[in-house]
């Protein structure tokens, strides 16, 4: 199991913003792996680069102004960054699918759910109308929609947020991908619906052996769903490991700060410790560690030498002076 090559192997990925007068990386030297049959959570504050990282896997980042400036994204033995446009198109949806944060605006309002699902099927498989419709109805049922036949003929505006997100999931499932990237799939939804959607994703992962890359800023979601997690800060992965290890023994001061900022039931308000300061803008990053200005454990070398991600204990951490 350990020797098996990961399903997705991102190495040293940098994504740069390149406009008229500016050029800087907003994702810097990110390394991530997702194994078969695994849920990896990518955690961080908004603007830390987690969505850009995810979008660049399928090369769906806004380009221009965003470009992959270095690194490789190896999926199933192929480097996705080297694929031609049409090769990339054939990967999207069939090998790696993606769902997004705001399901209501992410579905084309002019077409029925059925038309959207069948055209996703036609995009990858030369099947007849009957088969495509059957695939669509199956995907709707798999996504946990109770009345697939009815939803098939409905337009996106007739759906609630929760049902829209299930339709998005169905759209992702139609071609039976091996990896699902879910970019904050429950952020826009009610709490009860959130739990249902997350349960469904977890089930799908287990039943189909589908790996999921779950992007979220919600640590509760991470704890309940993911197997492994990667914490991102200012465009870098600062800590990565099994969820239980990271939660039990956070090593990077930023991770400890994140966990300290989560309210607990029965805890006093004074137990909450916010991280002081703010995330540096990508064009004003310090030379050393990106977290140095907010860090209570900073050493001299932290402001001059950029730490690298290295194995420490059971996790990997990018820090000169880790906790514990």
């Amino acid at each position, binding site marked *: 199991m350990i020797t098996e090559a990961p399903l997705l192997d991102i190495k040293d990925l940098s994504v740069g913003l390149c406009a008229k007068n500016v050029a800087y990386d907003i994702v810097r030297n990110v390394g991530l792996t997702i194994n078969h049959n695994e849920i990896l959570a990518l955690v961080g504050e908004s603007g830390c680069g987690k969505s850009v990282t995810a979008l660049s896997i*399928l090369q*769906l980042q806004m380009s221009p102004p965003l470009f992959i400036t270095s690194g490789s994204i190896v999926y199933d033995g192929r480097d996705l960054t080297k694929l031609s446009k049409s090769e990339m198109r054939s990967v999207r949806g*069939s090998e790696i699918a*993606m769902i997004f944060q705001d399901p209501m605006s992410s579905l*084309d*309002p*002019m077409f029925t759910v059925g038309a959207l699902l069948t055209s996703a099927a036609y*995009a990858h498989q030369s099947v007849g109308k009957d088969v495509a419709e059957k695939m669509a109805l199956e995907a709707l049922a798999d996504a946990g929609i109770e009345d697939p036949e009815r939803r098939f003929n409905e337009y996106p505006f007739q759906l609630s947020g929760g049902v829209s997100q299930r339709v998005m999931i169905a759209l*992702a499932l139609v071609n039976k991908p091996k990896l699902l990237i879910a970019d904050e799939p429950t952020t826009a939804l009610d709490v009860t619906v959130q739990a249902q959607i997350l349960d469904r994703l977890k089930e799908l992962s287990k039943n189909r052996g589908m790996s999921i890359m779950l992007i979220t800023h919600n640590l509760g979601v991470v704890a309940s769903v993911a197997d492994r997690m990667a914490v991102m800060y200012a465009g870098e992965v600062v800590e990565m490991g099994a969820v239980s290890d990271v939660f039990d023994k956070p090593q990077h001061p930023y991770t400890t700060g994140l966990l300290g900022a989560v309210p607990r039931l029965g805890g006093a308000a004074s137990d909450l410790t916010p991280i002081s300061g703010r995330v540096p803008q990508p064009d004003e990053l310090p030379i050393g560690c990106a977290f140095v200005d907010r860090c209570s454990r900073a050493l001299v070398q932290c402001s001059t030498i950029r730490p690298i991600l290295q194995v420490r204990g059971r996790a990997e951490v990018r820090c000169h002076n880790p906790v514990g």
Partner: protein
Amino acid sequence: MTAIVKQALLTFLLLMLSSLAVFAAIRLSGGDVTAARLPASATAEDRELFREQIGLNKPILVQYVNYLGKVVRGDLGNSLTNNAKISSLATEKIKNSLILGGAAIVMVFGVGIPLGMLAASRRNTWLDASISSVSVAGMAVPNFWLALLVVWLFSSTLGWFPSAGQGGFKYLVLPSLVLAAEGIALTVRMTRSAMLENLSQDFVRTLRASGLSESRIYFKHVLRNSLLPIISLAGLRVGQIVGYALVVETIFGWPGVGQILVNGVLRRDYPIVQFFSLVLVVVVILGNLAASAGYVLANPRLRK
């Protein structure tokens, strides 16, 4: 059903009001109604007698009611200029104008939408810049001037198309082009901006993530979304073409409603003006109704 009845009543009211407005306006705008029909040597008494004969000495409202009574009985009246029966003129004139206006409408959308799509897909290139600047020019240039320009270029200089008259496709090209010019320009710009706006919508990213090809996304999904605003303003395009038809038909000697109407106004030919201006009102109303119906049909939110 109630919506249809309401629309029908509104349309009727609009027709009555506009007919009254035209009826009064042509009578209050001065000019001598007898000049066109009676010889220059006619005496003041003769002219007075003629006015009495056609009922011009009565109050306008009484004249209007009498006119309506005749129209209801199917009598549209005769031209004051040559005494021709209007009902026998109408078919030919309306048919000619529908050919010209129809050709213009087809060009507005058939040329405007593809050009707008082309400009949007080649955004910020020289092609986009040229299409956009030509369409700005198309909106800025008054059509009577454009008419003179194309006649000079394509007719006098190059000799490709006849400069005036009617008969065959060749005669249709220049007048319908001039008639459609502003509509084409507006449609190009609207299509371009709607396509670009929809291209940046979230749903496009979803379609890409599903593995749909760029051309499928562009020609099916983005286009379908972009057609809505274009359809919603199609009524305005019809109104514009109807308005410009007066100028264009006159310049190109196209024997349609616009031409006879302009001549009718110049000669104070009241029955001609009354009838043919109402024809234009009806066309504008029908155009707007068709546009509204098209908008409802094209928009799933309204259709359901």
